């Protein structure tokens, strides 16, 4: 079930909301059980078979968590943690990478192992990483063990962040599972509504609209981009699509969480205004990059190590980040691309220099944009060869001796047909509205009042516009459901 579907918005959500608030606020345990049941139903709606895998995974992680806590301070605790990690990585590997591994073993060693054809359970990358964070947090003692299996289950399967994050750390939410207020809080709830509506609008109005151009340029429905301009438009549209799609989902998840009394950390912070690649990754998919930082990069030694070790740490972290996104050489190449860029920045201390020196900063900002655009080409293309082909067309290089025109009628049509949406995308991926709001807040009471009325009216208009898109729209799943 996706948040931007009619069944979610007009059937699942009202039932869930009504059920939750009809339970007396003193019965938080009952509310949690209700949310757990609804979360499993939410997952089962699209993937009925995999709900059993999730339940099994929850039980195993809960049991391992108890064992880690019980044997705390002994070698057995570490063994239990390793067992827990092996279980999570194991199911993750089987469903996500087994066939990819078999294909490559067969290819490189000339063998003929049979493909297993497992279908990837939606959200496995997210809930598995949440489970791993639970085990490590309990082992490190940064969070208390959860003795109630139902609370562990709710943490892993809570529907707002189940399918596509943000990856919620156990230590960030443990206290909220049992200690949040169960009553209706208007301020929290209205903030949740606001975030949900903003997220829904990002997805339906911006991401889905530019996705059409991106899909056509990358060959989902047509051949390769037939002109240099189409290739550039395609990757720009894809950059906006993936940002508004994923940050829209995160907004909706944060908003829904808030409506049920939970506070999730932010997952995006205007990544496209970054001055450096390092800054980009501090602003993009924050829950994943901080997960790898805290559970992989820092345990490996982090930055305060000799250069060789630093390069290895960065390599390991970024190859894992690439692989996490999917079983394909293009994802590995994408991870490697960022390893190279971040190593370059780290060794030359680019972030510090760019901050201090404007004449480095401005060209470097343009370089940063080009880098993540090229990165998205590798990420989006169906394979590495197609990505290279696409990049050649983008930069006007011949492909198999064929030169592509700079402009075509179709490219101009895409541009004319999307110019307003593209302007909206540029505005929406910068903090211009937040800056304006901050400016207004310093102004007179009257101006503040007008601004608030305009903001509320705008959000109400967006509610109706989003409903009109849902009523009209076709099925359009979120990109990060694939990971």
């Amino acid at each position: 079930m996706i948040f931007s579907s009619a069944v979610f918005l007009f059937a699942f959500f009202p039932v869930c909301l009504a059920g939750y608030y009809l339970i007396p606020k003193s019965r938080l345990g009952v509310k949690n059980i209700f949310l757990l049941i609804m979360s499993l139903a939410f997952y089962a709606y699209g993937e009925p078979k995999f709900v059993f895998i999730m339940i099994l995974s929850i039980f195993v992680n809960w049991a391992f968590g108890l064992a880690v806590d019980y044997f705390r301070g002994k070698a057995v605790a570490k063994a239990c943690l390793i067992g827990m990690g092996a279980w999570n990585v194991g199911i993750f590997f089987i469903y996500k990478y087994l066939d990819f591994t078999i294909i490559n073993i067969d290819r490189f060693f000339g063998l003929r192992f049979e493909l297993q054809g497992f279908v990837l359970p939606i959200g496995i990358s997210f809930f598995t990483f949440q489970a791993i964070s639970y085990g490590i947090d309990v082992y490190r003692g940064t969070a208390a063990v959860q003795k109630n299996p139902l609370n562990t289950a709710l943490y892993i399967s809570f529907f707002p962040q189940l399918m596509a994050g943000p990856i919620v750390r156990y230590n960030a939410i443990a206290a909220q599972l049992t200690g949040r207020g169960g009553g209706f809080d208007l301020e929290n709830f209205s903030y949740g509504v606001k975030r949900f509506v903003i997220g829904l609008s990002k997805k339906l109005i911006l991401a889905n609209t530019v996705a059409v151009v991106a899909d056509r340029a990358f060959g989902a429905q047509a051949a390769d981009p037939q002109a240099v301009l189409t290739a550039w438009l395609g990757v720009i549209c894809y950059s906006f699509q993936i940002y508004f799609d994923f940050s829209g989902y995160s907004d909706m998840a944060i908003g829904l969480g808030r409506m049920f009394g939970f506070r999730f950390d932010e997952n995006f912070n205007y990544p496209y205004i970054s001055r450096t690649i390092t800054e980009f990754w501090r602003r993009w998919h924050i829950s994943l990059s901080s997960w790898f930082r805290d559970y992989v990069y820092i345990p490996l030694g982090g930055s305060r190590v000799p250069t060789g070790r630093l390069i290895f740490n960065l390599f390991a972290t970024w190859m894992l980040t690439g692989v996490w996104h999917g079983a394909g050489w293009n994802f590995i190449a994408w991870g490697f691309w960022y390893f190279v860029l971040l190593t370059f920045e780290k060794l030359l201390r680019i972030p510090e220099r760019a901050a201090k020196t404007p004449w480095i900063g401005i060209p470097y900002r343009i370089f940063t944009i080009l880098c993540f655009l090229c990165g998205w080409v590798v990420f989006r293309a169906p394979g590495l060869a197609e990505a290279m082909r696409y990049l050649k067309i983008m930069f006007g290089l011949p492909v198999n001796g064929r030169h592509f025109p700079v402009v075509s009628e179709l490219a101009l049509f895409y541009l004319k047909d999307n110019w307003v949406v593209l302007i909206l995308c540029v505005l929406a991926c910068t903090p211009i509205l937040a800056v304006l709001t901050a400016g207004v807040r310093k102004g007179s009471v009257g101006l503040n009042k007008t601004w608030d009325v305009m903001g509320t009216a705008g959000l109400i208009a967006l509610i109706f516009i989003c409903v009109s898109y849902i009523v009209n729209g076709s099925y359009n799943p979120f990109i990060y459901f694939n990971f």
Partner: protein
Amino acid sequence: MEEQNKKKKITKSGLVLTLVFLAVVIFLTGWNFDRFVSLLKADLPGITPENVIWRTGSWNTAYTEYFRFREPLIDLYGVVNLGLDKKSLDNFTLLKDSENKMQSTQEGFDRLHAEEAVMILSESFAQRGIPLLFVSEPPRVTEESFPVSAEVHFFGSRDPEFLRALTESGVDVLEAASEGEVALKTDMHLTTAAEMDVARQIAEWLKRQGIDYRDDDLIFDLANYDAASHLFYGNLVKSSGRYYTLGGDDFELLYPRFETDFTIDNPEGNIERRGDFRHSLMNGMEDQLEINANPYWVLDYLQYPSARYTITNHKQEGGCKILYVMDSVAMRTAAYLALGAGEVTVIDPRGANGNALLIEAMNTGDYDAVIVEGGGQDFYFTMNLY
């Protein structure tokens, strides 16, 4: 004090936003919940893990297709897209051209398959001495009306390479023409006048072949018809509302003033209908005029979507027998053509068992001529005649 006021303001605007959001979500749920529950109940006995995803798709459709406020919401969607200056909608399948007319793209049009299908039909009938005419309908999209028409295949577009290949293989091709408005603004179908023009040009071809087509002077003189016009909202309105399309179409219905007597027979569907032109071939649907609810009722000539049916003209007994292989672009054309023929058998290969019925007709059917006319790529894709 200032902080308290600010909090109050936030609470007030938050309250309004929350109330509107809940009202929209819960109010609309109420309107449609019974439909959802009835679908769920109907589906429950048959739900298996294998088909649940397919079924959930239908539940979602139940919510979107049968929304009580669907029409104003679709209007709003169109208005937003007007504001965004969007010319393409629905994943690039529907487009509005420079004359505000709907165009529909046909992704992945397989020209070779289409050529092969028409050539096989032509050769098979030629072996039995039956002439075949391929009709290319008057083009609704031109380079002037849509600048990317050379790069994208559109529904009902004229494809010169396709027609050249057919001509070089010996297929008779009619590049039909029509003066005035060729196509509807809000749908992919031709105007009634254009379909009448196509029928006239087919009749002229039949006569050139020496085939006994009768009363063409009477049939193709519009003075011999009563005309009625209805406001028609086609597919583009269904997708984007009335304001995006800047109004609807005037759909013209023509009723012969001369005497007519037809039987339409669809054995597969157990349907036999006899009466004058209006009550046999026009299906009588125009009396119901619920055009907004189902715009195709007004277009519902003949027996769409059956794969095969035969029109017998009792006023032209002994007249020519025509096989008309077509999709829905030619339904009015076939009806007008039937006015001067003894019998017209219509085969739409897209209907149930349509391909097999076409092969049967190709091998054993007794006709004086065969007409082939299809606007959509699925018309050609469903023809597998090897």
